[in-house]
């Protein structure tokens, strides 16, 4: 089984459009949306939800006002400024439980926190595991781990060859959680100075965790000089350049229709993404 995770560093470079198209091109795969903060893949794959699960993770402190003597020790020791006027700010609370251990009146308890949902769905392209983190919740990395674990279980159970995941932007906790132990990271970048800056940082994360990477340049014709810079950079780092996709409004039109672009348009964009899948599937 091979797990391909699509990342970018910078947001909005086209990860989800590409994953949606790979979903239509690849056979024998399970799809995973690891961007649990702002999941969009379901908007291209028209899933029907088969299973909905609550995601309980982390804890929040709760003060029993009847027992509290307002001694103030918890406020003094909390390093996250989560207790003010003997009340817990659930958004600021890190869930460390320090306060509950030190309260001399045992007035503080930790309650489990329901921080989101995860789903197993059927799509015409195969099974999809996706999730929705609750509003202003923490632990997106753990929810990503849950999504990946379920995707892996389904792939093993059904004997599927690929897990294809849509990753989050950035380089922090949910990215590390999406990436660690994957077989291949496909970087979708764009020929902008910020795209290049962010690509270099996320490739650093891949190196750090020992995951091999490939690069795909989206909207490459927007700035051909920057495209050449990315090509030179990939050569110097011995990273394979897997595809160069031109700018085309058809990509946005396909999003509006709610279908993968390879099923919407026959042009150069679709041909490049087909070539991209060829490169990924014939390493």
């Amino acid at each position, binding site marked *: 089984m091979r797990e391909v995770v699509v990342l*970018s*560093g*910078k*947001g*909005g*470079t086209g990860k*989800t459009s590409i994953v949606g198209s790979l979903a239509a091109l690849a056979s024998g795969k399970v799809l995973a949306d690891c961007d649990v*903060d*702002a999941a*969009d893949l379901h*908007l291209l794959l028209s899933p029907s939800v088969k299973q909905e699960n609550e995601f309980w993770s982390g*804890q929040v402190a709760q003060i029993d006002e009847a027992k509290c003597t307002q001694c103030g020790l918890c406020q003094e*020791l909390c*390093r*996250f400024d989560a207790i003010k006027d003997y009340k817990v700010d659930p*958004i600021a609370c*890190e869930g*460390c*439980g*320090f306060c509950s*251990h*030190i309260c001399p009146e045992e007035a503080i308890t930790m309650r489990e926190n329901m921080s989101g949902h995860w789903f197993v769905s059927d799509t015409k392209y195969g099974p999809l595991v996706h999730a929705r*983190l609750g*509003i*202003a*919740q*923490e632990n*997106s*990395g753990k929810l990503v781990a849950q999504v990946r674990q379920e995707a892996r279980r389904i792939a093993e159970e059904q004997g599927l060859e690929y897990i294809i995941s849509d990753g*989050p*932007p*950035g*380089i*922090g*906790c*949910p*990215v*590390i959680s999406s990436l660690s132990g994957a077989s291949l990271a496909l970087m979708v970048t764009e*020929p*902008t*100075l*910020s*795209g290049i*800056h*962010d690509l270099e*940082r*996320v490739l*650093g*994360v891949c190196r*750090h*965790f020992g995951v091999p990477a490939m690069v795909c340049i989206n909207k490459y014709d*927007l*700035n051909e000089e*920057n495209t050449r810079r990315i090509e030179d950079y990939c050569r110097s780092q011995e990273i394979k350049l897997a595809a160069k996709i031109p700018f085309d*409004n058809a990509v*946005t*039109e396909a*999003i*509006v229709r*709610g279908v993968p672009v390879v099923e919407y348009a026959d042009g150069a964009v679709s041909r490049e993404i087909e070539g991209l899948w060829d490169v990924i599937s014939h390493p």
Partner: protein
Amino acid sequence: MIISIASGKGGTGKTLVATSLALALKDSQKVRLLDCDVEEPNDHVFLKTNISGSEPVFIPVPKIDEAKCTRCGQCAEVCAFNAIAVLGEHVLTFPQLCHGCGACSYLCPEKAISEEKREMGVVEWGGADGIDFVQGKLTVGEAMAPPVIRTAKRHTDSDGISIIDSPPGTSCPVVESIEGSDFCLLVTEPTPFGLNDLVLAVGTVRQLGIACGVVLNRAGVGDNSVEDYCRRENIPILLTIPLDTEIARLYSRGITLVEGMPEWKDKFVGLFEGIKEIVDARSRSLKR
């Protein structure tokens, strides 16, 4: 006044809006731009920055004095993040999992745990094209952005206008960045992706009780669903930026919109006036 720039979806134009808003206001206001997208800070790509100072961001992690430790296991028991384990005669710490809460060292009955600093990022400051500039940078390979964001936000200027460029998404790094703002500007694009993630971002902003408005970027492609949603939810669209290859090309070269197309300066000043009107009206109604 603190204005944060956020979006659920990445790549909608937060950096474009933050940098151009800051530059458009610099002639009439004292402006400070804080790049709190510490995983991928990009404002510096668009500005001629002159960094004059910096401070490393540390998180305190436990250091065990093996001579004093009796392997009682109390530390492992209180750690909510599994960052300490006692295995036979050894106490193992996993600094990357530690949130720096300090429970283990405080609660160790033998006083065998002290804290040492682990660097996870840096905050830098200086000038940039006539504005004050602050940016946080998370070290590559590190997972936790919030401590770096928290440190960067200590540099917020309470006198002038502080503009905070936030990370994308809706979870803890975003909350850390926008909390305490007087106004949150949500940048989106007119597609089902833009709408889906805008709805999530509005949820986060409303949970924090922050007033918000929308900048609609790349208008002209896509559909009307974002505009319909904003009308329904009574969220003002304060600025519309069309899909324009010239704007995209300037962006690709690291040139801000107000610098590359100076006619946009007035529009960003207008955007600020729109924000100010809402913030003023809100503070008047709160006083009443």
